[in-house]
């Protein structure tokens, strides 16, 4: 593990701050660029549309970020989204269940599926990738078994959950933003947030320190399941239909892209929730802007994918310098103007090789 000497060189600090906040800069550049390129971009309607499109993504990205920080992963969110939408839809259309109750049942189903994931992965310690990949496939089948025909024509009140506005703000945004607020409070304001990081940094040490290394991931899986199901409900409400075969297909990759784009390390232990928010915004704005410019879908995919690859390069560079990604780097730059005692050079941690990217 290469850890650099405490750098005191101003230029490389600035550079590392820039590298660290490349995503933020990217978002700002896109906002400006698309505003110039398309008169439709910077309009209240379109901005609302962007927030709407990002809402479900954010809702699931928040708990997923916590899972990834713990060194876990949930690939089954796309299918859980489908199951959630289908369960709510079927209950309302076929069984005429009260919409509120239908939503609660759908979310509960998501939580239960998440608990199953959490038991297998968190408790029995089976491989998260393998288990949730299996669940992804299996649950897609389950969604179609539950609703062979797409339920549609939901009660009027239900539709406003996905397409309605409260105080001019799209209703789903409350869920997306709410999820991030709750996740942020959990991660940064409660002791268990630190425990989540600790599990990702060194699970064995966390275990020996008395951290709940099984229960915490299990709970995070359950919450992720519930959030995904709720996301499915919101999508179904917006579409006024819950197609079991397509609702949420590919969603797991989009949301994972957003989280990783935000600088959360795939192996856990590093990254911030703020980065994940930026990752979501980046993806949604890129998608929206390119659509407005009439760029074909294929090119949008190319842009999304390349963004992730570039993010990998930037994260690597940031890590090389030992700086945190995201805004943290910028904050550090400001903070370092105050006097901070320099950390002593650790004898048994190697100093980075002189071929470091920006270390000179």
């Amino acid at each position: 593990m290469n850890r650099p000497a405490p750098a005191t060189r101003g230029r490389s600090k600035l550079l590392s701050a820039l590298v660290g906040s490349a995503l933020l800069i990217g978002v700002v550049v896109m906002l400006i660029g698309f505003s110039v390129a398309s008169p439709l971009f910077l309009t209240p309607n379109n901005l609302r549309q962007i927030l709407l499109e990002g809402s479900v993504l954010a809702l699931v990205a928040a708990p997923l970020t916590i899972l990834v920080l713990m060194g876990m992963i949930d690939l089954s969110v796309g299918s859980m989204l489908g199951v959630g939408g289908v369960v709510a839809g079927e209950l309302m259309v076929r069984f005429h269940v009260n919409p509120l109750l239908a939503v609660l049942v759908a979310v509960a189903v998501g939580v239960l599926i998440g608990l199953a994931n959490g038991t297998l992965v968190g408790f029995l310690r089976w491989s998260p990738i393998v288990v949730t990949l299996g669940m992804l496939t299996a649950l897609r089948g389950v969604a179609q078994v539950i609703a062979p025909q797409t339920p549609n024509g939901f009660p009027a009140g239900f539709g406003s959950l996905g397409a309605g506005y409260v105080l001019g703000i799209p209703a789903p945004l409350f869920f997306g933003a709410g999820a991030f607020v709750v996740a942020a409070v959990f991660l940064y304001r409660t002791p268990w947030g630190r425990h989540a990081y600790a599990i990702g940094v060194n699970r064995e040490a966390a275990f020996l320190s008395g951290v709940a290394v099984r229960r915490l991931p299990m709970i995070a899986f359950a919450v992720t399941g519930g959030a995904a199901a709720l996301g499915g409900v919101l999508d179904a409400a917006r579409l006024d239909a819950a197609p079991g075969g397509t609702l949420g297909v590919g969603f797991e990759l989009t949301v994972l892209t957003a989280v990783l784009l935000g600088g959360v390390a795939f192996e856990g232990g590093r990254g911030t929730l703020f980065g994940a928010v930026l990752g979501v915004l980046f993806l949604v704005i890129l998608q929206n802007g390119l659509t407005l410019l009439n760029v074909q879908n294929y090119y949008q995919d190319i842009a999304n994918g390349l963004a992730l690859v570039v993010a990998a390069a930037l994260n690597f560079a940031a890590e090389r310098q030992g700086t945190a990604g995201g805004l943290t780097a910028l904050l550090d730059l400001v903070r370092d103007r105050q006097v901070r005692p320099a950390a002593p050079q650790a004898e048994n941690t190697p100093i980075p090789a002189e071929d470091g990217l920006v270390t000179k």
Partner: protein
Amino acid sequence: MLQVSNAMKRYGGVQALGGVTLDVAEGTVHALLGHNGAGKSTLIRALSGATTLDEGRIELDGDVLQLESPRSAIAAGIATIHQNLSLVGALTVAENIFLGNEKRRGLFVRRGQQRDQAAETLSQLGLDGIHNRRVATLSMGTQQLVEIAKALERHSPRVLILDEPTAALTHGEVEKLFEQVAALRARGLHIIYVTHRLAEIEQIADHVTVLKNGEVVLSQPTANLHRDDVFRAIAPGRSTSGGAGVAHAVNGPAEAHSAAASQAGARPSGGLEVRRLDGHGLRGVDLQVKAGEIVGLYGPLGSGGSAILDILAGARRNWAGEIALGGNVYAPRSPSDALRKGVALVPSDRRSRALFAGMTMSENVLIAKAQRVSRAWLRSTRRERQAFDRVAADVNLIPRDPRAVAGLLSGGNQQKCVLARWLVISEELRVLLLDEPTQGIDVGARAEIYSLLRRAARDEGMAVLVNSSDVEEVVAIADRAYVIVDGAITGTVAAADLTEAQLLNLANQ
């Protein structure tokens, strides 16, 4: 003759090497000592081509060496055996020796030739019949020798650098390693031997150099050197408890014993009692640690001491026997269960089992405490800061910066962080277990850790159990000691007879 002259190296504002001169004669073992951060690692990195010097010269028999990369160092005849071995466990010894340097015919490996050649090199090192074994099945000591064989086979080096080679070895393995080092010395190699263990120097080194703050503070032949001089050179006049502690570590804790004896008598109830403990290689272990007492558990690595500590800390299950804590039956289900009952472990192998390298000092120290100072489930920054400041001053963390990244600290500071993790909740603890508490830690920090343990036992009445494969350590810290070999207790040593000779004697019966 290997000559390093006026080596200088700066990292940012830190002067790692401030003009170091070092002469290593052909066919000698040259021991290199110093604190963590004294410049040893930097010097070795320069010699092994991992870093370049800002100024200075490295010559071998008068030829100036250009060591720009590890590859060029190897080509120049300098082989470095790092503390973390570079062997692949799943491959055989022969495959490891030729890894990346395979004997080939076209695209294909000539296994037969590799095996024969490996067998020959290995037998020169006294290792016969292991070339087909998988490395993972070998003991650490043998792996260390395999690593040396790999270096010999590959480069026919003139200079051999050994970086704390005995850190993970058992007593018998150390002896074996020393035999081979002596043989290599006789073959005319220049051997640089980095260590923290003074006893080893007297045994193997011809010359000793001590670095401090990037400068040479002592360089003498071993023949006319006293151990106290080396101690003084490494840590002269430290301002903290280090000074007294160092003397303590050398002279033995004579007066501490009597204090413990009187205290332990006053507190009969709080301790730990283990009877007929079986499982994980243990065979009917009986032992007892009273409140206010520091008990040593001495045994070569892999003897079972770590297993006992892990069981007591709830980290391993499936054992048989009886354990009592303060008179009550104690059977921890997990480390968190053990903690609830007041038993905490400082594990060996800090980096993989204790430290959160990427997290801050404060987060490392308060991993268990944060929950206890939180308000209505929310963390209180102010209270966390207070708790950190208090314990940081107590254990003398340097720098006392809660935001310092733990992975960047020196080994001694990292270990203090891990210890502080429990000292900060000491009011809830009854038993403190420590596994190899000062492995890879310099003399000064070692003394500080010893004095912290004494305080935990004397002032807070904790029962302290220290497992160590280092005889010096057990003698320095323990009030009494058990000797464990192959999972069974082979003897106990009371305070009055606690000497290195006595422990070694019991271990080698």
